[in-house]
């Protein structure tokens, strides 16, 4: 009997195998991939609301189910966008890899064991490498190689830490580990092992100072792939796993006060927030700016996950969702600009709003949400994170996080003024906005960002509250 959570892995995997044999067909791979991912998304949402209210549906189970919804939501948007944007002759392989990476991410969040987690993280890494270098351009191959090297080092560190964990506790499953941790008085060895594991996940997340692969990979990949990588891949293989580790660290040390590893991870998060925001100011390329912005936003999630109070965890999880939505939307907008103008250089054009109003306005919504302005969804998650830091007595970190939000607004305003809302430049006179296929994911994510901001109590009651119940 196959467990229900394995269905979310098996179905896209089976579809990928079928897709791989459809390489010579033009539309069939895209239709198959979109249909399968949309069906899985629907199934995820239905099963989530069916289980809501059950006594056993809280904590890590809710987090997994919520992450599954985010994964399939982003994958559905990316597959839809790619159906119109992919210019390759090998569409079967392209959509097959996209399905396998979706299966791998679903496997990561469904895993209840660190070894299983490792296996699925490798699936995602191999597929990411293939997707970044898919078009065999020198720049994308270089980006893919950089990703591959750092990712391999992270995988080696992760495997080593899992071995150490097994040697020390005799278990790798989350439940068994919690039991062992609660039974042991001395958590020093476990702290060191989990610190090594956290290091591996920070590399996978692309946090400062392990970020060197991020700008190259995001800039050189095609827009759907960048949206997938920045939107969900780094969150699943990096920050989601980091959330699990931070929860274990919090259990070992009874909170952040006696948790030196958690504090160290918080400092890494803060450094990423500041470094990403400052570097984004200097960028001349739209996608590269988004890459540095991602480094900064991942810092917010990390700092909250390491703090591990109920309020901080709610903020971390909701910011994962928000960042997935607004960063994917921004990469779709970057893709639309690239298709229309042939470039994503910020200084090479201005006044795009006159020719591409939908792209310009949806990008504006995403940017304002990234900066944490009300009433957009990004406001709530940043508010939760900063409030949690303040509540826990980390006043300096809370102020720095708030200051970085202002920096985020500054670099995005610079981008908006330079690219979309300035005086129209002559070189954009003959461009036009792309069709329905390119704009639909932008509209959908804009709607989600606004709706999640306006109806935040619904999100809190149904998605965040059952998750943080276990921490309270």
């Amino acid at each position, binding site marked *: 009997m196959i467990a229900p959570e394995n269905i979310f*892995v098996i179905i896209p995997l089976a579809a990928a195998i079928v897709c791989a044999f459809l390489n010579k067909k033009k539309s069939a791979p895209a239709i198959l991939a979109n249909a399968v991912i949309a069906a899985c998304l629907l199934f995820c949402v239905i099963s989530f609301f069916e289980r809501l209210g059950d006594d056993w549906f809280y904590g890590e189970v809710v987090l997994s189910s919520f992450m599954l919804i985010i994964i399939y939501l982003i994958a559905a948007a990316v597959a839809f966008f790619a159906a119109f944007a992919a210019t390759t002759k090998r569409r079967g392989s392209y959509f097959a890899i996209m399905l396998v990476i979706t299966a791998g991410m679903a496997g990561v969040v469904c895993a209840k064991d660190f070894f*299983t987690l490792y*296996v699925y993280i490798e699936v995602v890494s191999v597929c990411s490498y293939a997707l970044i270098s898919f078009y065999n351009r020198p720049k994308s191959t270089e980006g893919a190689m950089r990703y591959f090297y750092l990712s391999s080092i992270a995988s080696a560190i992760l495997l080593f830490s899992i071995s150490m964990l097994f040697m020390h506790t005799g278990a790798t499953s989350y439940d068994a580990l919690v039991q062992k941790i609660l039974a042991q008085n001395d958590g020093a060895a476990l702290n060191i092992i989990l610190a090594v594991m956290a290091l591996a996940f920070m590399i996978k997340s692309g946090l400062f100072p392990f970020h060197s692969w991020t700008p190259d990979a995001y800039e050189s990949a095609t827009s759907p792939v960048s949206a997938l990588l920045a939107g969900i891949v780094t969150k699943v293989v990096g920050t989601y796993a980091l959330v699990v580790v931070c929860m274990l660290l919090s259990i070992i040390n009874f909170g952040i006060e006696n948790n030196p590893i958690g504090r160290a991870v918080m400092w890494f998060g803060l450094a990423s927030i500041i470094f990403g925001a400052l570097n984004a100011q200097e960028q001349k390329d739209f996608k590269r700016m988004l890459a540095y912005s991602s480094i900064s936003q991942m810092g917010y999630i990390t700092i909250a996950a390491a703090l591990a109070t109920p309020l901080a965890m709610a903020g971390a999880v909701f910011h994962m969702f928000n960042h997935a939505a607004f960063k994917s939307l921004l990469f779709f907008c970057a893709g639309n600009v690239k298709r229309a103008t042939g470039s994503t250089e910020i200084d090479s054009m201005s006044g795009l709003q006159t020719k591409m109003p939908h792209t310009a306005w949806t990008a504006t919504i995403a940017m304002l949400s990234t900066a944490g302005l009300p009433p957009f969804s990004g406001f709530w998650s940043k508010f939760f994170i900063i409030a949690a830091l303040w509540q826990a007595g980390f006043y300096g970190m809370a102020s720095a996080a708030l200051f970085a939000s202002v920096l985020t607004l500054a670099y995005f305003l610079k981008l908006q003024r330079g690219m979309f809302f300035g005086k129209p430049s002559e070189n954009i006179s003959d461009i036009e906005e792309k069709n329905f296929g390119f704009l639909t994911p932008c509209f959908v994510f804009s709607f989600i960002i606004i709706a999640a901001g306006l109806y935040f109590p619904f999100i809190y009651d149904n998605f965040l509250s059952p998750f943080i119940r276990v921490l309270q």
Partner: protein
Amino acid sequence: MSLHLFLVISMILCSLAAVMAKRTIHAAIFLALVSIILATIMFTAQAPWAGAVELSVCAGLITVLFASTASMIGRGESYAKRESKIFRFLPLGLIIFGVIILCCGDFFEPLFANTHNAAAPSLTTVGDIIWKLRTPDLIGQLCIFVAGVLTVRTMLGEGKDE
């Protein structure tokens, strides 16, 4: 015991074949065989967890990585067309050797007497470990295999985009 001996010697022969094979792809396949035999030995020696991990990581993941690398470096090369003839007959040799060991394996039994002392866990069969305890790992291995094949095909296959 005869099974143990057969497995150990088969593993040594496959290791030799892996080292001496001229085609890198054949070397990767022999290496996978070594891992599979080693996992079987671990299962028979009452170490099912180690066996499952060996089967999962070495026979699955590492083989995909080696096969990918072999495909990359071997593409378009003709230097390895001729392979040592002795290894063409290796499967036949292994079968003959297996039959001999099965017929007169009791002769070697004292060599493996100590393995009986190992404590037997409650779940000992390959089926129990893989199907009852490690199902997600098994599906993950399938994913890794498909991902590896697709990656190699994408990077080295025919019909690349201009």
